[in-house]
């Protein structure tokens, strides 16, 4: 890097840091989501929450939501030029902590052809109340089959149940073939 580039880079690092602070982000990662990564992130967050004496029930909820979000990416995320399997299972993963809530956010590339089906599932889950979600979970557990990658189609339902909120998601256009799928789950710190 020449001097000008170094300067630009340092400014970027500092801006990035400030931006993380402003959004109260405690963990951010971009890359392949492996089982090792899942274990590392969950145990890191667990020990942070324990240190801060977060209630058991909040700790458990955050743990549940993190695991399901991470597994969603590792099992379903597409990639740019998705023929290249090396790039599948990647995405961005963030945890932020505010005064009253935790947010777990994931973002990953999804092919346009899969958007309809995904939005249908998410919208359907969002029409259900507590009892409806419970019934759907039971039905899906009984009748659903494990996919090749070990997905049971239960993750989103579980996230909705554990957070007690609607699934909050968006699709941002990337190019003609794909969108960026963002899902934010909120866990209240006050029971």
């Amino acid at each position, binding site marked *: 890097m020449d001097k000008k580039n170094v300067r630009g880079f340092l400014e970027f690092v500092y801006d990035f840091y400030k931006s993380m602070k402003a959004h109260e982000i405690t963990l951010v990662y971009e890359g392949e989501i492996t089982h090792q990564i899942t274990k590392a992130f969950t145990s890191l967050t667990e020990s942070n929450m324990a240190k801060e004496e977060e209630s058991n*029930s909040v700790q458990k909820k955050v743990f*549940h939501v993190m695991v399901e979000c991470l597994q969603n990416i590792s099992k379903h995320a597409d990639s740019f030029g998705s023929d290249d399997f090396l790039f599948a299972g990647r995405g961005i993963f963030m945890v932020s902590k505010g005064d009253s809530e935790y947010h777990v956010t994931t973002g990953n590339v999804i092919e346009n052809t899969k958007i309809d089906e995904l939005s249908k599932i998410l919208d359907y889950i969002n029409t259900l109340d507590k009892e409806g979600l419970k019934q759907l979970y039971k039905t899906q557990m009984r009748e659903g089959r494990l996919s090749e990658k070990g997905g049971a189609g239960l993750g989103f339902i579980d996230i909705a149940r554990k957070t007690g909120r609607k699934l909050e998601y968006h699709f941002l256009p990337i190019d003609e073939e794909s969108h960026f799928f963002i899902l934010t789950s909120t866990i209240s710190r006050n029971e």
Partner: protein
Amino acid sequence: METIKIMGTDDTPTVILDAENEIFEISGRSLPEDVTAFYDPILGWLDEYASSPNKKTVFTFKLVYFNTASSKLLLDILMKLEQMHESGNDILIRWYYPEDDEDMQEAGEEYADIVDVPFEQVGYTLS
């Protein structure tokens, strides 16, 4: 019949299937990297056990956490026990949950709703 003894880790449960000593137990945390690979031997063992089970089988679940993929495989185990019950065997499920963990208690209730097999819920306090 061979026994299965798997020591638990931070992502896989402890599993003891010992017909001779009448211990049938799954406990701890379950979020294995490959759920199918982890639970297949357990389901296979139960198939074999079902052909000549003990007079009475008390199967203990004492889990503190399981992910959604595991929940499906736990149901597969319970359904095998249900089949054994339907064939006239004496089966009892004991579902342990930490007293302060409503979700784990509810998970037990849900399984009890799905499978038709004697099901006992037992709350305990972590000491």
